[in-house]
């Protein structure tokens, strides 16, 4: 699968109030781009604009895929909250997209995807019977079922404990390989482990941060990754000041 890249350029505002920009964001096709920055700088707004969900903010500029085709129908979204429907079991939640589009639910594929996220033994449980990590695995399975070229991640692992989070990072990196991923995160470790490209968003725009060498997901104890993580944190502390 060759996934298209993503290009966002312009200034965002709500009415006359400036939100962010001018910025010029290029997300390379088939790669993982991490977006960090201080709270309130507009990272999530940017993601929602790309997803076509923001009805309040106006972007004076453009959002486009590198292949020139419309973005609609080629995006999947995974948020901080797992957004599982409490009345559906794991299988039902995994098949939600197909149901909502009126397509025939592909149970075989869903079973396969659920096996890949390690939930084979939990297919008929409801979200209430799962741990936080398991719930995010279901959300990941649901995202994979969408089979979209571009995946938007809005801090999907930030509510998880450190151990589960690092496992989810490995899993997501493996399963989303080949897709164009734009991930908003607050976690320098996450960015240092997963980013093919790392960008820091500030009120003035975007600045690149050189990612550590090595294939993603980079090991948690890799010295270069640890150094990059510390440097990132330093950068963020300075930019927030």
């Amino acid at each position, binding site marked *: 699968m060759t996934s298209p890249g993503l290009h966002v350029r312009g200034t965002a505002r709500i009415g006359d109030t400036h939100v962010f920009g001018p910025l010029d964001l290029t997300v390379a096709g088939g790669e993982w781009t991490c977006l960090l920055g201080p709270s309130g700088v507009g990272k999530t707004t940017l993601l929602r604009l790309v997803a076509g*969900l923001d009805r309040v903010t106006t972007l004076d500029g453009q959002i486009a895929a590198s292949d020139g085709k419309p973005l609609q129908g080629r995006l999947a979204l995974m948020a901080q909250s797992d957004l599982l429907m409490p009345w559906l079991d794991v299988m039902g939640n995994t098949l939600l997209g197909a149901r909502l589009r009126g397509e025939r639910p592909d149970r075989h594929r869903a079973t396969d995807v659920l096996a890949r996220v390690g939930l084979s033994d939990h297919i008929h449980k409801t979200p209430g019977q799962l741990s936080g990590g398991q719930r995010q695995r279901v959300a990941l399975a649901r995202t994979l079922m969408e089979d979209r070229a571009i995946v938007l991640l809005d801090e999907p692992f930030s509510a998880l404990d450190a151990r589960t989070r690092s496992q989810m990072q490995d899993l997501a990196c493996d399963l989303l390989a080949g897709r164009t991923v734009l991930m908003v995160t607050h976690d320098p470790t996450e960015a240092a482990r997963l980013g093919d490209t790392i960008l820091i968003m500030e009120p003035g725009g975007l600045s690149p941060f050189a990612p550590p060498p090595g294939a993603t997901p980079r090991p948690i104890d890799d010295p270069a990754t640890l150094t990059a993580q510390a440097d990132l944190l330093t950068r963020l502390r300075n930019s927030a000041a």
Partner: protein
Amino acid sequence: MKNWLSILASTVFGLALWQAVVTLTVPPSYILPAPWDVAETLWTARGQIAHHSLYTMGEVLLGLVLGAALGALSAIGLASSPLAQTLLRPMMVFSQAIPVFVLAPILTLWLGYGIWPKVIMALLIIYFPVTSAFFDALMRTPVPWLDLAQVMGANRRRVMWHIRIPAALPGLASGLRLAAVYAPIGVIISEWVGASQGLGYLILLALGRVKVDLMFATTIALAVFTLLTYAAVDHFCRHWLDAPTE
């Protein structure tokens, strides 16, 4: 178990209080009969009470089913269409300013003395609580769920069916619980206005003959019946509509 003990204790306490009032004030039996006399009447008139209960029960259940169905459909219709909201919501709220009871004579005039004015009365009295509770819940679907559905490429009808309605069922449940308590009120009022069967009719009949013990016995039967209706609806709601416990 503790629950049942509490109900039992409360019943015994209520009966004791009643008996105490009778013992201390010695009212004439046509004003306040003693608990024991009422119990005796409840037994001796059981056939009569059961016969009239059947009518009232049928009317209440029919009114409940029709009112709940109509209320639920209206809520879905309103939630699906901003135009319907603009046109109908104010009218619905205004209609609530009319005490439903004043419609009982008109309904009897139009529909006669059979079960239908009672059923319609129950329907009218529960329609608004059901519609309103379900509609409010339908309008409160968590926005992130709707966003997710939009990114997934869902159309509005499917979002309604697969997300908004299931998410709003606990709201419908609270409307139905209210309805279970309201429906018997509507039926009894309507039976007072014009009926030849039913517990409301029996109460008026007993009043005319100054059979106060029978009035009390009928009232107790009606209260028990209302509690049973509530319990049944509550059970249904717990099983089918309430939010899964997390």
